[in-house]
């Protein structure tokens, strides 16, 4: 195999790959936005919510962590619309699944971070006469977020990687485009390797950022 030829071949399909990457990033970003908000909410509910809400939140988290994302996608694509008796739209089903999945895995990260703030920090807030309107935004929240950031970022990488599954329900993401081109041209090696590399570069840079953040900020503060 000739590298120049391979690169030239890939260059011909750059637009298709680019569109696929755009969709992958779009699905991931929307899933992240809704998922993180949901995850934080669920972690708070599991910490301080009404007992009934706590049970609901726990069941939700366990179901989405305890089943393959692929079956979740299939369920929201084929079962939910039938149950509701209405069309949901493929993009909506995709984004809904990814958001719910992200909500479940990130809620665990938030929960661990909330737990890690010891009761001693809360005692200090009382001893300094800090009311909740001060202690929550200035003491509890910043520490929760700073502690949660490394695991949340790896949750993001997980979601980014899991988003490749949407190709199985026909969404035109990077994986889907790669497979389509591979099938159409019968040259899977170049195109699948390129696809893998694109995923790798993005996921790897985020992972490195996490390590850097942990080393520079968290260790300095001994959080």
């Amino acid at each position, binding site marked *: 195999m000739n590298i120049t030829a391979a690169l030239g071949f890939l260059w011909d399909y750059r637009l298709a790959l680019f569109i696929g990457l755009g969709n992958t990033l779009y699905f991931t970003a929307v899933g992240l936005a809704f998922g993180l908000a949901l995850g934080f909410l669920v972690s708070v509910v599991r910490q301080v919510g009404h007992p009934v809400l706590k049970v609901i939140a726990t069941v939700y988290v366990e179901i989405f962590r*305890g089943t*393959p994302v*692929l079956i979740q996608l*299939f369920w929201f694509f084929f079962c939910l619309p*039938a149950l509701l008796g209405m069309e949901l739209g493929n993009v909506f089903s995709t984004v809904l699944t990814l958001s719910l999945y992200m909500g479940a895995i990130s809620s665990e990260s938030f929960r661990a971070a909330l737990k890690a703030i010891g009761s001693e920090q809360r005692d200090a807030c009382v001893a300094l006469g800090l009311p909740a309107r001060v202690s929550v935004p200035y003491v509890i929240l910043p520490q929760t977020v700073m502690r949660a950031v490394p695991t949340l970022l790896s949750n993001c*990488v997980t979601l980014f990687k899991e988003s490749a599954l949407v190709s199985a329900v026909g969404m035109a993401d990077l994986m889907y485009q790669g497979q389509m081109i591979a099938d159409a041209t019968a040259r899977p090696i170049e195109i*699948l390797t390129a696809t893998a590399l694109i995923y790798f570069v993005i996921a*790897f840079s985020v*992972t490195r950022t996490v390590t850097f953040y942990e080393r520079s900020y968290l260790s300095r503060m001994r959080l």
Partner: protein
Amino acid sequence: MGRYTWDFSVITANWDPLMAGLSVTLQLTAICAVIGLVGGFVVCQMVMSRIAPLRWVAVAFIELFRCTPALVQIIWIFYCVPFFFGVFYDPFYMAILALGMNITAFNAEAYRAAIQSIPSSHYDACTALGMSPLKKTIYVILPQAVLMAIPVLLTNTIGLLQQTSLVAIVAIADLMYEGKTLATQTYRPIEIYTTVAFIYFALSVPLSQVVGLCERRLRSRLA
């Protein structure tokens, strides 16, 4: 909502293919779990080795498999291994290769983190007791590392169980694949996908309970 009439007779009528699929899923999981437990430890030793090229290979292997989607790995191996080596193995073995390498990479990280969490005072204690490096590894480091790594190794195994569903995309007749086939054949996707999801869930939950138990025991034992 509510208009849909559930009919689970489709499950009982198709019990055999579902169970056959489940058996494939469990075989894949079990074989890859063993590969991952052993392979992960070997790769982890390579990462911590004093021979630099060995280290580089191991780190590249880990990062490559951790930073790309499992689906991409499976598809890549399915398309590209026959091309490169001119051989075509049974898809089941290809799936074992892909999933086995994937979990090996994740487990290697789990072992490494566990070994690094052993305080340096233990190494000093071994030296003070006049233990040889080999004895130190076998009697002090290894048991602790395995013990500390157990929760993450188990969590990775739960992840593996869920990742095996990806092989359905390359037409290996696992639980997911049988579900998909039945759903299209019988036009009852709701019952079938819900049942399949429930089976995965029922397999994951006890495992995650064991993880929680292990973490609590470890915390009290090593406190």
